[in-house]
């Protein structure tokens, strides 16, 4: 399915990617500032999200079928288009698209606010990125005209298009790009995640009015994909300066996308309207406006899409997905490749510093129950950090579980050695999860039930921010988590290397340091040979599996559900007429969507 793209060099990705469980929380909070630090790491990853799924009819039982229909020539499995796309219709101009988001962002300023899925949904119409993914998962210049590596691949020159107008009427030039980059690095928290890839001085240079040069510490063959996400969204320099002085302006961003912000109420509604001076022209911008409403319960939002109260919803909540699937008036696009649900153990603290405890926990876990009761069939069981459809997947790696008979002796042996960590012959441990969330609570209850024959489980529900924090600073035993799923696995290096396993804050959450594994990680980073990389990653998977630090449960499912009146959901076009990647982890584009009449 996967093959190397020869058109562009494979370069080293710079950022990590991870997901926090909570996308399906019924009660979701925005992150506190403390989470900005960690979550900002997420914001700068090279996410070439795999896109899978299919329409609502075929995806239910065998989600892989539709993937197989891909053209076989892409880096990623392509989305099989919904039937309505087959009929050529004349697009209708006008109308407001009503989109439900499950949360709101702190703000919509890409320089100082961390974007999660909801924020991306609202920011995508307002900001065009410098680069974007085409349907094959390869980067294409978008707002940028071109990207050229210099001095090997340590530096990249980015040339901007001429005559791009911001919503305030000013013209975009190199100064805006520099202001955005420096603004990002000026934020002490966000820079924690971004700065390490760049030297302390001379990180960005202005070559001419429309050209900037980014200077990196290490070779990076894939640098432009770094600019497909938040980091590639460029607000006007004046806006950046003004927002730095008055944070309230983060709610009223000035971009250059096809839609400009019309009104916004935090945690409620955000309305964007067509921007008439859009640099690509408005011939293909059909919608008058898009209205984003926060509906925290996406299952309820799904009901409303079915009822016609809303046009589109994006969710990873199994209840919502099932509702969308069974709804008569809803089409869905599901993506099973963009993340793994897992359970992590802290290998630097008792009792899980002992592999016997980790093994026991792994054996005691009932993944089948998890898949049927929690995922309810919306997400298949996962064996490793890669979906089997991906070439990186090592089919020999099998996630162990459901063998409680093996757990008993291990626990017995452990407790014999460390009686202080045991009570009544069971290992004492704490299961930490984020809440308040009905789904997370159910997961915790289920796991506790799995484990309680061998472990004395104390449940601890923490607010999402505290939850992330305690994991980052290593104050946990076991947590439920969602992670991985980047298009290019090189993005995952940062979560796995020894360098991030130490210190006060560790991004290698489980804190497993294995020098052999580091060697493999860096080897695959150094090569552009796909076979070599695949081989390295298969070995890495086996190595991860052997440490018993993660228990993979299911592949996360991001689903876009929309009413029949919504057309052209996956028909977004790039500047050169390329078809853009559809449903990248739920970060939907709305540029060319139109609403049929009636």
């Amino acid at each position, binding site marked *: 399915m996967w093959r190397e793209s020869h058109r562009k060099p494979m370069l080293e990705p710079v950022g990590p990617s991870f997901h926090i469980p909570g996308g399906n929380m019924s009660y979701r909070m925005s992150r506190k500032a403390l989470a900005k630090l960690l979550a900002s790491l997420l914001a700068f990853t090279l996410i070439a999200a795999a896109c899978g799924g299919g329409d609502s009819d075929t995806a239910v039982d065998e989600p892989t079928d539709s993937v197989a229909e891909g053209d076989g020539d892409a880096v990623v499995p392509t989305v099989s288009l919904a039937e309505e796309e087959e009929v050529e219709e004349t697009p209708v101009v006008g109308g407001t698209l009503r989109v439900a988001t499950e949360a709101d962002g702190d703000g919509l300023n890409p320089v100082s606010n961390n974007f999660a899925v909801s924020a991306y949904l609202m920011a995508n119409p307002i900001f065009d990125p410098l680069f974007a993914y085409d349907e094959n998962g390869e980067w294409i210049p978008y707002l940028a005209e071109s990207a050229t590596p210099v001095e090997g691949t340590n530096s990249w020159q980015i040339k901007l298009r001429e005559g791009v107008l911001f919503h305030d009427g000013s013209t975009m030039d190199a100064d805006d790009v520099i202001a955005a980059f420096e603004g990002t690095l000026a934020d002490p928290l966000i820079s924690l995640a971004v700065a390490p890839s760049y030297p302390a001085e001379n990180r960005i240079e202005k070559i001419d009015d429309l050209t900037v040069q980014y200077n990196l510490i290490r070779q990076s063959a894939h640098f432009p994909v770094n600019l497909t996400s938040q980091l590639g969204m460029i607000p006007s320099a004046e806006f950046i300066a003004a927002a730095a002085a008055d944070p309230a302006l983060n709610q009223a961003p000035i971009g250059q996308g096809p839609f400009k912000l019309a009104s916004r109420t935090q945690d409620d509604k955000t309305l964007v309207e067509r921007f008439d001076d859009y640099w690509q022209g408005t011939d293909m911008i059909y919608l008058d406006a898009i209205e984003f409403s926060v509906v925290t*319960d996406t299952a309820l939002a799904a009901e409303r899409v079915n009822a016609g109260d809303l046009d589109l919803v994006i969710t990873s909540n199994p209840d919502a997905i099932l509702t969308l699937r069974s709804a008569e008036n809803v089409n869905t696009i599901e993506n099973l490749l963009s993340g793994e649900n897992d359970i992590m153990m802290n290998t630097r603290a008792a009792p899980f510093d002992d592999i016997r405890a980790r093994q026991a926990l792994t054996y005691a876990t009932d993944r089948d129950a998890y898949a049927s009761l929690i995922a309810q069939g919306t997400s298949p069981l996962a064996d490793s950090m890669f979906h089997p459809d991906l070439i990186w997947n090592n089919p020999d790696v099998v996630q162990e579980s459901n063998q409680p008979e093996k757990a008993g002796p291990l626990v017995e042996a452990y407790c014999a050695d460390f009686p202080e960590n045991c009570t009544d012959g069971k290992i004492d441990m704490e299961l930490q999860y984020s809440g308040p*969330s009905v789904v997370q609570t159910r997961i915790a*209850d289920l796991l506790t039930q799995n484990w309680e024959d061998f472990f004395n489980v104390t449940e601890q529900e923490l607010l999402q921010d505290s939850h992330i924090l305690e994991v980052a600073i290593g104050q946990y035993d076991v947590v439920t988590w969602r992670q991985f799923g980047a298009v290019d696995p090189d993005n995952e290096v940062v979560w796995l290397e020894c360098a991030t396993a130490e210190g006060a804050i560790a991004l290698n959450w489980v804190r497993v340091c294995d020098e052999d594994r580091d060697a493999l990680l860096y080897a695959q980073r150094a090569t552009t040979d796909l076979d070599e990389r695949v081989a390295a990653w298969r070995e890495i998977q086996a190595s991860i599996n052997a440490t018993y630090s993660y228990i993979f449960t299911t592949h996360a499912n991001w689903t876009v559900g929309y009413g029949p009146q919504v057309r052209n959901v996956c028909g977004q076009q790039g500047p050169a007429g390329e078809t853009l990647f559809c449903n990248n982890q739920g970060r939907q584009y709305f540029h060319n969507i139109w609403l049929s009449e009636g």
Partner: protein
Amino acid sequence: MIASVPEPNAAIDGAVEKKLGWAFWLSVAWIGGLALAAVAAPWLPIKDPDVLGAAPRAGLFSDNLLGTDALGRDVLARTVWGARISLGVGSVGIILGLTVGGTLGIISGYFRGVVDQLISFVFFSLLSFPSLVLALLITATLSRSFWTVAMTLGILGIAPIGRLARATTIQFAEREFVQASRVLGAKNGRIIVRELLPNVLIPMGALTLLGMGISIVAEGSLAFLGLSVEGDAISWGKSIVDGSQVRDLTENAHVALVPIVAMFLTVLALNFAGDRLREYTDVKETAF
């Protein structure tokens, strides 16, 4: 020449005997039975409330009498076990509220003056603080153990109970029997304990039941905000929230409805019993 007259006569004695009525005893039986079941839950012939054995979202009268929830746990068992926390939190909370609020209210109503103004001001301030917001503040910042939640509910009760105690105290403190006691030479402490307490506390005793109902409901409200007792502790509020997910509600509403009905019946029984008890302990002051 005091004539001996046979009185009080028998007719009055008969008339004075009040009846609580069958509905009261039914309410008491429900609350008592529930409390008993809650205490005895581990030994009752019900399924393990945590075990995920059965098919999820089973309907009523399947293998599981009242069906199962989204994780396949027995709804009946969870409702019985949930009574432990709900009744526990409710009773501890109201006892705290009654003790603190009642004491402050009596002191305030009896001594009046500056003390009264100060305590009344505290009560009014507490009242102008929306109660659930107060509860939120406490439960969100402290760990949400059983005791935190119970204490929080107790604090919520202080101001309303205190105001009632104060009003009742004032009403009685001006009565002539209190003056009579003072004329006899009773000290303040004695007047409060002997003359006022029985008149204030006994009606407030009935209030205990009403207040317990309110506390049980408040636990549910906290659960809806995700701030009830943490961990895998089972409470009605948490069960209702769990069953109130849109899909659960549309496809198997009984998961939410069973604890809702249990809570409703309990609160109804508490309200009714409290109301009857209030009437019952409300002394008639004339025989005619």
